[in-house]
Every structure is written in structure tokens, then in C-alpha cells.
């Protein structure tokens, strides 16, 4: 199975819907892509995308539906991925394929628990 397929698989496994399949991104027209992206959605909890670099670096964007500032939650967040950026409802994690499933599951639970 290709790397990309394994990522899509992981997403489906935790119950995400893939809203837009893999597409390439580059700095500007006529430049070779530096990576590819896939967009997902998890119920009415959160959505976002996977950003995969040509060199294999993997980033996960989580956009929470509910209003709060991720920056205030960083200290209590138990994710394996590295937090790249957090502002408002936007959270960027640097992931690897082994942790992706676990982290997404955790975020799903975390956001559900916030809802309660």
C-alpha cells in the first residue's frame, strides 16, 4: 500500500470523511509540487487537512468547530506529534504515520469531552 493510501486508511479508520482526495501543491504555477494535501472532516467536531511533503514530512491541521484558542490548551494536550502552531481554532501538528491514528483519536476524544 502506498504511503498516501495508508494515510487515507488511517483517517477512515478513526471515522473521518475524506472531503477532498490527494492534490498537489507548489509555490506557484510552473513549479514542481513540494507536497500534496488531503482534506478531511470528523463529524461536527473538527476538520482540516493532511499536508505531506515530497521528503516525507507529515503535517496535520486540526480546525475545531467549537470556539476556543488552541494556544491555551497546549499545556494539557497529550499528543505524540509536535505542535507546530496553535492560534484560535487552528492547530498544526507535525506527525508521523505511526502516531497519526492515535493522535487523531485522542483529539476526537478531547474535543468530544470539551463539548460535554
Amino acid at each position, binding site marked *: 500500500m502506498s504511503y498516501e493510501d495508508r494515510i487515507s486508511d488511517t483517517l477512515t479508520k478513526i471515522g473521518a470523511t475524506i472531503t477532498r482526495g490527494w492534490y498537489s501543491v*507548489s*509555490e*506557484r*504555477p*510552473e513549479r514542481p509540487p*513540494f507536497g500534496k494535501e488531503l482534506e478531511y472532516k470528523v463529524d461536527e467536531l473538527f476538520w482540516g487537512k493532511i499536508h505531506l511533503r515530497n521528503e516525507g514530512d507529515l503535517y496535520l491541521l486540526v480546525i475545531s468547530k467549537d470556539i476556543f484558542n488552541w494556544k491555551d490548551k497546549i499545556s494539557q494536550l497529550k499528543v505524540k506529534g509536535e505542535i507546530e502552531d496553535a492560534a484560535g481554532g487552528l492547530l498544526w501538528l507535525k506527525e508521523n504515520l505511526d502516531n497519526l491514528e492515535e493522535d487523531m483519536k485522542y483529539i476526537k476524544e478531547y474535543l468530544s469531552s470539551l463539548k460535554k
Partner: protein
Amino acid sequence: MSLQNEEMDVVLKIKRYSPEKGYWWQEYKLKVDRFTQFTEALRRIKSEQDPTLAYRASCHMAVCGSCGMKINGEPRLACKTLVIDMAKKYGSNVITIEPMDYFKPVKDLIVDLDEFYQRMYKVKPRLYPHKEVLEGNVEQRLKPEDQRELWKFAQCIWCGLCVSACPSVKMDPEFLGPAAHAKGYRFLADPRDTITEERMKILIDSAWRCTYCYMCYNVCPRDIEPVTAIKKTRAYTRLAKEKTSVAQTGEKHIEAIFNSLVESGKLEEAKVYLSTYGLLGSIKDFIYLFQSGKVKYALVKEKPVENISEVRKILSGDNK
């Protein structure tokens, strides 16, 4: 948070100039505290002692690039330098202030920077985006690591300090100077830009005219390392279609160095020299070498690195 203040009486010895009177030195006494910047010292002299003193200053936080001058001989931004620090560094409360070198004097600490600006314009200091982008049809992207790399060199504040202190600028009219190279590289390496070919034509020949003295690195108040930008620009020589003889020679030289490293992990100048200039060019210089009594060393063969495979791995970046 430990703010310890202290006070000191200092004498600022300022090299003044006017077209009518020429140069003269004038001394001003004042009391400064731990936090007094030179711009503030100058402002106080002008406001309280001598309104005729002329200098440029604006932002007092090292982002506008107005107040370049020489303080105790060091090319510096007056705002980014504290009076007490200089007094301590040089162990004297008498501190000299002079206009920047190289540029034509106008009045007191003010010099004519037009020549500097012309250098900057030469490198086409602006992004030339793709047509589709300019029309707003496509959104550009830029990787954060590329942003960091470019931003380092984009922070030039056009203060002129590096050019005023650069030896190559003084010796070689073909050399664009450090600031223009930093600016030029910032666009050359920007993946959003579309005129790479043209930029290489403007920048590459000049890049090989830098002497790597690190003066620009040392004096730049924004730590943008123009010399590093020049080194990175040289790396583009491989991609250039047209090359001047200076660039060609330089390229041969660096290739010879690379080959020497791959072969032995060490650098054999004699051999490098030979491959750069060819046998004919080298023979003449070997005669001088012979006369100086050095030629015996040219024949010594240094032993190669034993673990050469490791060095080759480092050089090739291939660690499979």
C-alpha cells in the same frame, strides 16, 4: 528582572564636516546612564548644547537604518549602541564619532547614500510573480523553512554600513556590494519569483568578486550575513547558462576543491591551483613560488584521510 542603572560622564568627540569649513573635531561633554543610546546622546547634544550638529536618525530601534556612523572606529547604528557599552569596551569615556567611510560627506555625520541606493536598484529588488498570481487567480505558497531562510536576508534596512566597510567595493567597480547581494539573493532564492535567469546574470559574476573578509557580517546591525548570501549565490553558478570569466574561474576553483576533498578528504592547493588556472597560468606563479623557497612544500604529498569513505558520505549526502 534586574535593572541596574549607573551614570557616567562622557566626552563625545565628533568629526564634523561642512563644505565651507572642511573637517574638524568637536567635543561635547554629557552625562549618560546605563540605557542611553547614541541617538539619544546626539539628540540631547542637538537640543541642549549645539543645534547645528547634523546627523540622521529616525526609529531609534534599529529598523529604519538612518543612523549609520563610525563609533570608536566601528561602523554601527547609533541607536543600537549604548554609550556606556562603548566606554566600557574601550576603557575610556572619550568616544569618537565619525561619518561612515566610503560615501561622500554631506554635512557632519550625514553622508550621501545615493550611490548605495543605486546599487540596490541594480538587483531588481522586487518580486516578479507569475502572471496568474498577479492577476489574483492563483494563491502562492511558501514553505515556512524557505520563509525563514529568505527572511534572514530580506531584513536589510539599507543603512549602508556594510558597503561603507567593504574592501571589495572600494577595489572593484564590478562588485555590487554586500547589501545588494543580500537583497539579490533574497529574490533569487524565492521560489515565487519568475526571473531567475535574469537575476543570475546580474548576481553571479559579482558574487565571485567578494573576498570573504566577513566585514559585512560583522558590521550588519540586522545580522543578515551578506557574505552568506554571496556564498549561496555562488552555488547558483552551476545553473547559469552564461558565465563570465571570473565566474568560470571561480567555478573551476570550487570544483577542484570538491574533487580534492572527495579524493583525499584534504585540500591540496598546488593541485587545486593547477586545475583552476591550467598549466600555463600556473607555471608563472610556480616560478615566484620557487624564488620564495616554497616549492619544496608543493611536492610534499599529504596523506589522505583514512576513513575517506565517511568523508565521501558526508560530501555526497548519500547515507544509504
